[in-house]
C-alpha cells in the first residue's frame, strides 16, 4: 500500500483495514501521533488528511488513498516551528504534553479553515481533544495568539 505522508511517498505492508495510527507508529516510526483511546474520542492521534483534522486511530488505511497525510513530524520545517507550536510554547500550555501533538494538529486544521476564530469557535473545534491535565485555558489563549499573527 502506498501512502503520501508529509510530502513523502511510503510503501507499507499493511491491510486496508489497519488503522492509520498503527501504521504511522509501528511501521513508520512516526510516533508523534499518540494512542489515547482507539475510538476517536480523545484526539491524541489527530493528523491532517488533505488539511483537515482526522482521528488516525479510527481511519482505516485503505480509505486514505492518494490523500495527503500530515503528521506532527511534517508540520515544522528544520528551522521554524509552526505558529501554533510557537504560541503554545510561549503560553507554556502543557503539563505532561501527551495530548500536545493532537492539540497542535487540531488547532492547525481550525486555523486553516477559520483564520480568526472566536473563543466559541475554538472550543467547538477542539472539543474532541482531551487534555487530562486540564490545561484548556492556556491552549485556547495560545490558539487565539497564533490566529492574531
Amino acid at each position, binding site marked *: 500500500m502506498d501512502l503520501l505522508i508529509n510530502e513523502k511517498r511510503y510503501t507499507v505492508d499493511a*491491510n486496508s483495514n489497519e488503522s492509520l495510527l498503527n501504521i504511522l507508529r509501528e511501521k513508520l516510526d512516526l510516533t*508523534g501521533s499518540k494512542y489515547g483511546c482507539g475510538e476517536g474520542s480523545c484526539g491524541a492521534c489527530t493528523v491532517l488528511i488533505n488539511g483537515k483534522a482526522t482521528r488516525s486511530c479510527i481511519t482505516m488505511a485503505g480509505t486514505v488513498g492518494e490523500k495527503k497525510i500530515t503528521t506532527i*513530524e511534517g508540520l515544522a520545517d528544520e528551522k521554524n516551528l509552526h505558529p501554533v*507550536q510557537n504560541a503554545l*510554547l510561549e503560553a507554556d500550555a502543557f503539563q505532561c504534553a*501527551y495530548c500536545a501533538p493532537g492539540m497542535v494538529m487540531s488547532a492547525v486544521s481550525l486555523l486553516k479553515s477559520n483564520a480568526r476564530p472566536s473563543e466559541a469557535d475554538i472550543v467547538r473545534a477542539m472539543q474532541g481533544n482531551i487534555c487530562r491535565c486540564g490545561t484548556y485555558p492556556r*491552549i485556547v489563549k495560545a490558539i487565539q495568539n497564533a490566529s492574531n499573527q
Partner: protein
Amino acid sequence: MHKKIKDITLAPEQYELHAEPSYQFGMNRRKFFSVLGSGIAISFTVVNSIRAELIDNKDTKDSEDLISAWIHVGETGLVTVYTGKAEVGQNIRTSLAQIVADELDVPFNKIDMIMGDTALTPYDRGTFGSRSIPYMGPQLRKAAASAREYLIEMAAVELKTDRKSLQLKQGIIIDQKTKKSVAIGKLTAGKNLVKPINNAVVLKTVDQWTVTGKSVLKVNGEAFITGKHKYVSDMKLPDMLYGKILRAPSYGATPAEVDISAAKELKDVIVVHDGDFIGVAALTSKIASDAIKAIKVQWKTTPQTGRSEIFKYLKDKGSPSNRKDQKTTGNADEAFNKSDIKISQSFNIDYIAHAPLEPRAGVAQWIDDKLTVWTGTQRPFGVQEDLEKIFNIPKENIRVIMPDTGSGYGGKHTGEAGIEAARLAKEAKKAVKVVWSREEEFTWAYFRPAGVIDVKAGITKAGTLSAWEFHNYNSGGSGIETPYVVPNKLIEYHPSDSPLRQGSYRGLAAPANVFARECIMNDLAQAAKIEPLAFRLKNLKEQRMKAVLEAAAEKFGWSSKKASPNHGVGIACGDEKGSYVATCAEVLVDPAGEVSVTRVAVAFECGAIINPIHLENQIMGSVIQGMGGALFEWIDFKDGKIINPTFSSYRIPRFSDSPKLDVVMINRKDIPSLGAGETPILAIAPAIRNAIDDATGKKLYTLPMAPNGISL
C-alpha cells in the same frame, strides 16, 4: 548525616495507598547469579531529558551524603543533577533545575536533570504526596550549595588566593581582587565531587533567588510540541516484539482451563502461560492481538459486589478506626445533642479513574541475567523492588528507567506494563513492549477509592461550631481533620474491603473529605442564617486559610454576588500538606437540570513560589480535573466488569467544561516552598455543590453530583 537524608526523602506518606501487584507469576524461581562484568550495558538511546541520550556515565552510585550522588560538574561546565523523582507533567524537572541553577549559580540552560533511573539516581521512595518541592528541593539546594563552597575552595588553591575574595557567578569563579577567573568545569575536569554534603551550609535566602521564583518555561518544551519526545509507549528497541496480555473477563475471574496450542502454532509468536498470567509477544501488535484471540480459556468466576450495592458494602465492611486515624477532643456526641442547630448527613463517593492520557506502557530487555525496564511509573524504585521479588534476581541486576511520562495524578504508583513486558521478554529472549489499551487502563489500573462519609455537626445560635463527628469509610484519611475550631470532635477513618483495586489519587482522600466538610459548613451557615464566608472566617483561627478565603472572595467579587436567574455561587476552602486553597464558583443550572460552571476564582498559597507560570498551570489543571470528579466522573461496575471503560462512556472534562478561571497565587516568601500538585483540587467540588444549592435549593451529597444533570 546519611540517615537524616533518608529520613527526609524516604519518610512514607501516611495515607499513600500503594496498590499491590495484581498478579503473581508462578515462574520457576531458580536463583540467578550475577555475572561479573562492567555494569549494565545500555546500547539503546532514548530521549529521557534535555540531552537525547542515557549513558552509563557512572559505574556505581555514590553514597547519598556525598555531593557526587546528586550533582556532577562536567568539564564543559554542564551540570548533571541526579534525582529519583519522576516527571509526569507536574514540571518538577524544571523546578528542581531552577533550584540547582540558583544555588550553585550556573546558567539554567547548563543544567541537565537525570530523573527516575534506578541505576543513576539516589534511591527515592516515589513521586507523590506533594513531596518533591518541600523535600527534594532542599536536598538538592543543600547539595548545590555544598558543591559551590567546595568549588570555591578548589579555586582558591588553583588561583592561589584567599577564598574570601572569590565569588561563583554563572559557572565562573572570579577573584574580586585580581579579576582572575576559572570555570567550574575546568576545576572538576569532569571528576566526581566526592565530598560530603554540608548540612549546615548557608543557603541563599528567598531574596537572593535569581532563577527560582521566576517563570521559567517547561524544560525541553519543544521536544513535546513537535512529537519528538519518546514516551515509553513510543519506544522501539532493536528486534523488539509487541506484547499483549490475555485479560480476565471480570474481576475475580481466574483461568480454569487454558489451551494455548493454536496460538503457539502461529508464526513468530511467543506464548507465556505462567500461573494466572497468559500473554504473548509477536513481531507486530496485530499478530499479538490475533494470537490472544486464538487462546481458549475456561474462566472460573466468583460473585462480585457491584456499583448498586457498593456504599452499603463499604460501610458494612468498615473496620473500627485505629488510633492513628482517630482524632478526639471533648465529647462530640454529648455536644451534638446539646447544640442549637444540628445537621446529620451521609455522603457517597464513587470510584473514579485517573485516566492518564498515556495508558500504562513498559519496555523490557534482558541482557544475560540483567534486566532493564523502561516504564512510566511514579515509583521507579518501587517497581525495581517488585521486579526483584517477582523474578528473584538481585536488585543490582535490575534497572528501571522512567522517561518523562504522559501523566499519573497518583495513578501510576505501580509498574504493571513493565512487569508484564519483563515476563514476556524473559521467554522471548528479545526486548518486548507492552502498551495497555484504554479499556485495560480503565479496568485493570487502580481507582480512586469509593467511600461513605458520615457527618454529624452542631453549632450554637451565634454560629460557633460546638460538635463535629466525622467518619470516613474506605475512601481514606487524608484531609480528614477539620481546620475549623471545634471544642468537641470525633474524627475517624474506617478502612474497608474494596471490591475494586484501589490506590492513591491526586490529594488522596482529601477531595472527598473536604467535599463533605465544606458542604456541611455551607448548610450550617444557611441554617444559622449567616453568610457562608463570614461563617467560615468566624470559625477559623488559621490565618493562612483566612487569607486564601479572602483573596478568592475578593477576586470573585463574592460580596456583590447573587447573579442572574438560574445562577448560583458557592465558596469552599481546604488545606493539605501545608498548603491552602479557597475556591469560589458560579454555576448555571438550566431548566433541564444541566449544570455548567461559568466562573471560578481560586486562591492558593504554598509558601514561597518556585515557578509562577507552572504553579498557575497546576492550579488551573487541578480545578478543571476536579470538576470532573465533582460533576460527572464515576466508574460503573457490575459482576466484576467495568461498564464504562472508554472515553465515550466515562466523561472527562473537555474544552467546553472549562470555566472563566481566575487564579490568585499568594507568595509567602517567609514560608518554605511546598508542593502544589494536589491541594488546589480540594475546594472546587464543594464550591460547585454550594453554588448549585444557591441556584436551586438542591443540596447534593454525592460525588459525582450530577452525572446526568440534576432533577429539579
